[in-house]
């Protein structure tokens, strides 16, 4: 068993924290887009609610979906974007030739993704409360379970994307931003799974976030916490994370074989 050094993990977290706080536009960028998106969907939900439709009876479903989607998307972005900074800075070789283990780097990236998510999401949830009367925090323990499942998925996707970055260099940079959007229609963020064609529902139910978004709708619309869905999401997440870890290690070793760790450009 390889020993994990908390000192090395803390050093990497500090390295990314220094970077984050060195630039106010970086900090602003973390809040700007989630805030804009929440406001846009919040106003849309307010409008639809006035028409007296289904959404009027299920106030907060749209905003809840937007905020939870942001946990998923921003979690992966924080994980992968933090890593890509090493490539932009041409620092990857320094990191890879140091005693830092891949698992320590991954733990540091997870920690930083949570820090970035907190900076990003907490102010947005407070504005949602103030503007639209939607209190995400009132979901209580359910919110913690939703968050845990979504962040696990985001790290799995982040691991896979980072592996692709290592193997293919900055040529794979676009995937950092776009890969997660593949899950947007399939995980039924804004609509129930029953809307999908029957055959596509099998794909949707193979993805952990689908269970979370269904669970969120059940909680907000029907006031029922679906523990069964959360448990299934967790089982799928464990499998997904294990697969992503194996892929990351394989891509890292492939990058080492192809000489991509010293020169990590395109």
């Amino acid at each position, binding site marked *: 068993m390889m020993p994990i050094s908390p000192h090395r993990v803390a*050093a990497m977290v500090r390295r990314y924290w220094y970077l984050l706080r060195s630039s106010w536009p970086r900090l602003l960028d973390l809040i700007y887009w989630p805030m804009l998106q929440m406001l846009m969907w919040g106003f849309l939900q307010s409008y639809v609610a006035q028409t007296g439709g289904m959404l009027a009876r299920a106030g907060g479903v749209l905003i809840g979906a937007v905020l939870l989607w942001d946990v998923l998307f921003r979690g992966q972005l924080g994980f992968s974007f933090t890593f890509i900074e090493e490539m932009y800075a041409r620092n990857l070789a*320094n990191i*890879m*030739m140091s005693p830092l283990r891949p698992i320590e780097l991954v733990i540091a990236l997870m920690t930083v993704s949570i820090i970035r998510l907190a900076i990003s999401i907490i102010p947005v949830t407070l504005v949602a409360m103030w503007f639209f009367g939607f209190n995400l925090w009132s979901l209580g323990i359910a919110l913690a379970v939703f968050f845990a499942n979504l962040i696990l998925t985001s790290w799995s996707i982040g691991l896979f994307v980072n592996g692709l970055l290592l193997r293919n260099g900055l040529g794979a940079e676009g995937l950092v931003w776009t890969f997660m959007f593949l899950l947007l229609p399939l995980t039924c963020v804004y609509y129930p799974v029953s809307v999908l064609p029957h055959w596509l529902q099998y794909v949707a139910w193979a993805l952990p976030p689908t269970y979370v978004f269904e669970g969120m709708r059940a909680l907000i619309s029907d006031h029922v916490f679906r523990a069964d869905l959360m448990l299934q999401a967790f089982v799928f997440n464990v499998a997904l994370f294990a697969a992503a870890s194996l892929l990351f290690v394989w891509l890292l070793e492939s990058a080492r074989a192809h*000489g991509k760790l010293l020169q990590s450009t395109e």
Partner: protein
Amino acid sequence: MDASPASAIKAENLVKLYKGTRAVDGISFNLALGSITALLGGNGAGKTTTIAMILGLVTPTAGRVSVLGAEMPRQRYQVLARMNFESPYVDLPTRLTVRQNLSVFAELYGVADVAARIAELATALDLTDFLDKWTGRLSSGQKTRVSLAKALLNRPDVLLLDEPTASLDPDTADWVRGHLENYRRSTGATILLASHNMNEVERLCERVIIMKKGRIEDDDTPQRLLARYGRETLEEVFLDVARGRQREAAQ
């Protein structure tokens, strides 16, 4: 891992293929503990790939390379804390101050008293005036000194340097060479140096390995190379090898 290795770096029939191209083509050498060796060669000779395999950044296609008895890259975590590397082609993050960068790497390498070590290196390499400046705002010469400080943070037993004085003015370059000499003398570290500066090689190195097209073309002390090729300077020897005149010159 060999508990008491006879050599600091040992390469045996080392080969690296990239899409059919032999970047390194069956090289072997032993670097004695405490030695300073130069790795010379033109662009594309295979120096950087060789160094990358020694560092565990590149997996050899065939052959073996070991550092302090640990096979690379398989056993790299047994020795990475005792090695370090400096190159103008690898940067430190520009949006961190020099002190922040050095402290992060000091922790990664498990340096005991980080603040004291940074202060010591800042004095030795004349970094004190810009320790709290962003690394990206430094001149190229200052950045080279900071990179050298990063490479010396853990007092490495094996130090790999890729053109350590490139972009330095002659005065600073001379001063850095003096520092490296002192470091080797005081610690007994093994240094492998890739350089295009032949004066530097003549001054610092007791052995020269000349590479061309992935192979070792010659390997000897500077004095014996000069005598064998009948040349006054290593630069002339280098040109003989680079232009394929080595055999007739050596004869």
